[in-house]
């Protein structure tokens, strides 16, 4: 852990307690407040922030730092550990034939990520087929078709079919010899009952091996509640965070994990088909905390 290089604000707080041989309740509270600011500015859900900092306060007062470790370093370690706990055990897509369905809010990067995943599997020796099941957005078909051709993946779409369930069934049939079938669905949110009903019907009919929720790193306080709504409706199995090449910290995605307890598989770091990285929790937390 690179504790020395924590964010300026947290370092300032830590400086305050340097030299004191014990930490009192008040100091702990003060550090907790600063930590809250850092997490809130990174878009971690208010609920999650309060949970994490409460646990930190408890541990800081009850536990003793290991021999040789200064109090301030130990406080930081608790913070880091609590966040790491939320992220859970690292896990990723399996390298085997399967059906993957991509879901999420409007414009978060589902269609683009479908192409990136196809390229990822191709590098591992598995060919992919992309199914254009977004029957709502203008030119969603063209977008996925062009992406499929760019990554040399098979493609199935039918612009005259308005029922995504029928479309996907045909697609799976057409692509039955392809190892990894990736289904691109429309953007939606929990307030839209009709679209939520549609994704329920798709999930039920298709029974995919993986339901991956695509979460834009810029997502704010609604990331947790939205993830919960998707999970309750269709059972999410993993998360991919997109747009990590911007200035956003991705605290929304962390809150989503805190809410639904599924692993983050990948992060998207650009618009190009190679811009997909396997999720690294330590790197992610360093960035979130402003290391």
């Amino acid at each position, binding site marked *: 852990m690179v504790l020395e290089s924590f964010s300026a604000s947290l370092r300032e707080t830590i400086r305050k307690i340097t030299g004191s041989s014990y930490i009192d309740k008040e100091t702990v509270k003060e550090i907790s407040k600063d930590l809250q600011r850092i997490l809130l500015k990174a878009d971690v859900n208010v609920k999650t922030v309060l949970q994490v900092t409460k646990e930190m306060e408890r541990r800081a007062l009850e536990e003793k730092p290991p021999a040789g470790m200064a109090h301030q370093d130990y406080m930081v370690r608790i913070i880091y550990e609590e966040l790491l706990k939320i992220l859970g055990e690292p896990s990723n897509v399996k390298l085997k034939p399967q059906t993957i369905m991509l879901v999420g809010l409007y414009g978060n990067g589902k269609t683009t990520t479908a192409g990136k995943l196809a390229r990822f599997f191709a590098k591992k020796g598995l060919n992919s087929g992309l199914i254009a099941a977004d029957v709502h957005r*203008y030119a969603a078909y063209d977008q996925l078709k062009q992406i499929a051709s760019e990554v040399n993946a098979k493609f199935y779409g039918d612009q005259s079919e308005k029922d995504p369930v029928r479309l996907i069934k045909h697609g799976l049939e057409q692509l039955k010899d392809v190892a990894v079938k990736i289904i691109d669905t429309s953007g939606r949110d929990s307030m839209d009952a009709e679209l939520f009903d549609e994704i329920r019907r798709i999930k039920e009919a298709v029974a995919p091996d993986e339901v991956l929720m695509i979460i834009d790193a810029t997502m704010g306080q609604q990331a947790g*509640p*939205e993830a919960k709504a998707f999970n309750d409706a269709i059972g999410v199995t993993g998360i991919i965070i997109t747009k990590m090449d*911007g200035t956003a910290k991705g*605290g929304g995605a962390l809150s989503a994990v805190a809410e639904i307890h599924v692993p983050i598989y990948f992060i998207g770091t650009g618009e190009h088909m190679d811009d997909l990285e396997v999720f690294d929790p330590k790197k992610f937390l360093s960035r979130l905390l402003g290391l």
Partner: protein
Amino acid sequence: HRKKIDPDEVADEIPLKLVEADVSLEAAEDLASLVRNKLKEDTTLDPNEVLSSSILEMMPEYKFDVLNVNKKPFVVLFLGINGTGKTTTIGKFAHYLKRNGKSVVIAAADTFRAGAIEQISLIGREAGTEVIRHDRGSDPSSVAFDAIEHARARNIDYVLIDTAGRMNTNKNLLDEMKKIKRVSKPDLTLLVIDAVSGQDSVNQARMFEENVGYDGVIVTKLDTDARGGSILSIYHDLKKPVLFVCTGQGLDDIMPFDRNWYVRKLIPEPENETA
């Protein structure tokens, strides 16, 4: 008989309440101290009214009617990070202008993203608006230029320029945006912000201002459960007005920004006290 209020207690609760609506922490804290001071001056005030009026103070009324302009063609350039809703918004904007008797041409200047030209072409057709397009991969500035020429030759009122989404951290793409702006000399440049995005909205707003410059903001996806705190943050940090908000994927889902509508969305009605 009014319950006695403690200004500090009221103010202390404001930041988290507003951050929960995606207001930036800084804006929320400034607002809290504004409310604190007002309540300390006059403890008989209603805290909720003080909060609402303080929010309105942070968002000065902006008098600009996009339907009433004195230049032809009036060129509007749209920009923003990836996927915020630029292309969809242009369709709505074109539809809004046409409903008000204006003629419009759209420049398909996102020549980069897969399916982008097809998307804006279909949207243009739906809105009954001509779309000027070049091949994928061609120079976006020249698409914008051609659309403006087209409008001049045909006496069209408005040119709406769709541009590719670009991250606020991507130097090359920001430079490209500068060039599009230089060539098209827009009369109005609008930043499109996604209401679902959180604390990062002000980073986007700031970096686009520093690197490209714009006149106002459109906030999309306010039909979701996001409460759009970024609107207040952008007023607070950048003093940029919000011109329109969007509330759905359809052509009609756009409306001029209404500050009072917004305050009600940002702070839901206080619960009625029974005691």
